[in-house]
């Protein structure tokens, strides 16, 4: 079974984020890393491909600047190859534009299953995977906490407000996985070495037959009008616990009439 995993390379979430004062886009200069949320999809894909008795796991990703360090991490985990759509015109692309680019690239790989995270850690729009599904004319199941393949359909335990639903869906399909669906493996030394020589096909927007007006800031058809500091929440009283900290909590709860 051939599986495509949509992955995103993002600025290190541990570092403070910033917006470009001119474009109001998230600053993506500097090193990008594989979004942690994507490690679950990559692991799931590797396990499902293995269980089906073979087939390739292909990564599909988009970046304005040709960055591949995050892709190498996923290749080191065991993915066979990657398709990177990299083009200066992609800067400022929104979720729908991203979906158009990813869908066009995924089509070339002709996968049986497309996996993605429920949302990225940096943009967290959370709509790109279903937009990809709609563009490809495929069904989708979001928020999967368990994924099984039986024959030519996928069975998913999908998170709900009350618990979870069992959902069945014919392949090919798009499935988004929650963190915790599987435990991602750490890349081995051998995997890291092998990843250096795995193929990364780099394509432009034109290579995909897409019009440049559909991507980038122009294609996004939305604009940031203002960025302002939120009303700061003033930090309150700090008590270093020396055995009586609990009593201060009780006093506080009494003041609020919770007790």
């Amino acid at each position, binding site marked *: 079974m051939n599986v495509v995993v949509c992955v995103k390379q993002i600025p290190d979430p541990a570092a403070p984020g910033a917006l470009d004062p001119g474009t109001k886009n998230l600053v993506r200069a500097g090193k990008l890393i594989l979004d942690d949320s994507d490690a679950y999809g990559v692991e799931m894909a590797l396990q499902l491909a293995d269980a089906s008795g073979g087939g390739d796991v292909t990564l599909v990703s988009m970046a304005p600047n040709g960055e591949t360090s995050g892709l190498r991490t996923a290749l080191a985990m065991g993915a066979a190859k990657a398709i990177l759509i990299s083009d200066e015109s992609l800067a400022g692309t929104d979720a729908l534009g991203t979906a158009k680019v990813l869908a066009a690239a995924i089509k070339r790989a002709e996968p049986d299953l497309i996996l993605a995270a429920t949302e990225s850690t940096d943009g967290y729009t959370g*709509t790109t995977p279903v*937009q990809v599904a*709609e563009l490809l004319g495929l069904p989708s199941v979001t928020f999967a906490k368990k994924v099984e393949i039986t024959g030519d359909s996928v069975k998913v335990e999908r998170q709900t407000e*009350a618990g979870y639903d069992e959902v069945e869906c014919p392949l090919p399909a798009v499935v988004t996985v929650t963190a915790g669906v599987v435990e991602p493996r750490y890349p081995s030394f051998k995997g890291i070495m092998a990843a250096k020589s795995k193929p990364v096909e780099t394509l432009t927007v034109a290579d995909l037959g897409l019009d440049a007006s559909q991507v980038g800031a122009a294609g996004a058809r939305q604009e940031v009008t203002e960025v302002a*500091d*939120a009303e700061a929440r003033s930090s309150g009283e700090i008590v270093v616990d020396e055995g009586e*900290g609990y009593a201060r*909590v009780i006093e*506080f709860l009494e003041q609020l009439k919770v007790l």
Partner: protein
Amino acid sequence: MSVDKIWVLAEVVDGAPITTSLELITAARGLGGTVEAVAYGDATASVAGTLGEYGVTTVYDVGDLGGALPGAPVAAAIAAAVASGGGPDAVLFPATYDGRDIAGRLSVKLDRPVLTNVVGLTAGDGGLVSEHAIFGGSQVLTAKFTGEGPEIFVVRAKSFAAEPSGGAPAAVVASPAPDTGATGAATIVARHVEERTGPKLDEANVVVSGGRGLGEKDQYALIEELATLLHGAAGASRAIVDAGWVPYSHQVGQTGKTVKPTVYVACGISGATQHLVGMKNSKNIVAINKDQDAPIFSVADLGIVGDVHKVLPQLIEALKSRS
């Protein structure tokens, strides 16, 4: 273009519209023009009264989906209604599992972008202006759409207060989904409800949440015990949900629930951006953490720098001796 008509997705759970949908209907009323709703499932007729009370004049009923996941069929029904004329200037979706699915598919069908994680809406020049909390809520970004066509927004829970306006029951107009082909082939074959006792996480007056600082899964029992003693609900950070200590339904934060209780007690939670977004608008925040530099202390009204394994048992004992 002025805003003459707004549609709101009225998600119905257990026979009633969810609170977030009622919040959006209330907000839509203040943005000008007519407010109409889109609903699906077999209970639309019975919620027309409630929707009318909050200001909805007409509800478009997609009807029973026959077990299909709502994303594809409901988006197709909305797109068909838009195409047949009389469509809205904006469509508001609650940020729920199904709301996001429907909004994403609708965005492709209409070839219109979608703005998600909205926490505020105002009427602007020629359309709506949305507010988004970014970088853990430290900054507010405002955005608007350009170009022609309906504006699609996905709005977070508790961004507005739900208030009835005392309107007459909404008229119900059947608006079934056209054939969705392969896109609508995902089908629910069974539903599982995870039992919870006590008040609901997003409705509780007190929320006690635990994080990685608890050290191990068994220690979450302290959180549940304290929550019970305070007649509150037990929540969790994403870190311990990902680690499998507690079900996803306990998660507070960006990808979990948004809560605004009278008191939020964060125990062993460092306060990552992901978590702060879901709880920083609580009326009062108590944080217990042994790392005095933890970001959670920057939003706490009362911060206890201490070991949760010492403070929580003492707190629990003291509360027990009171009752």
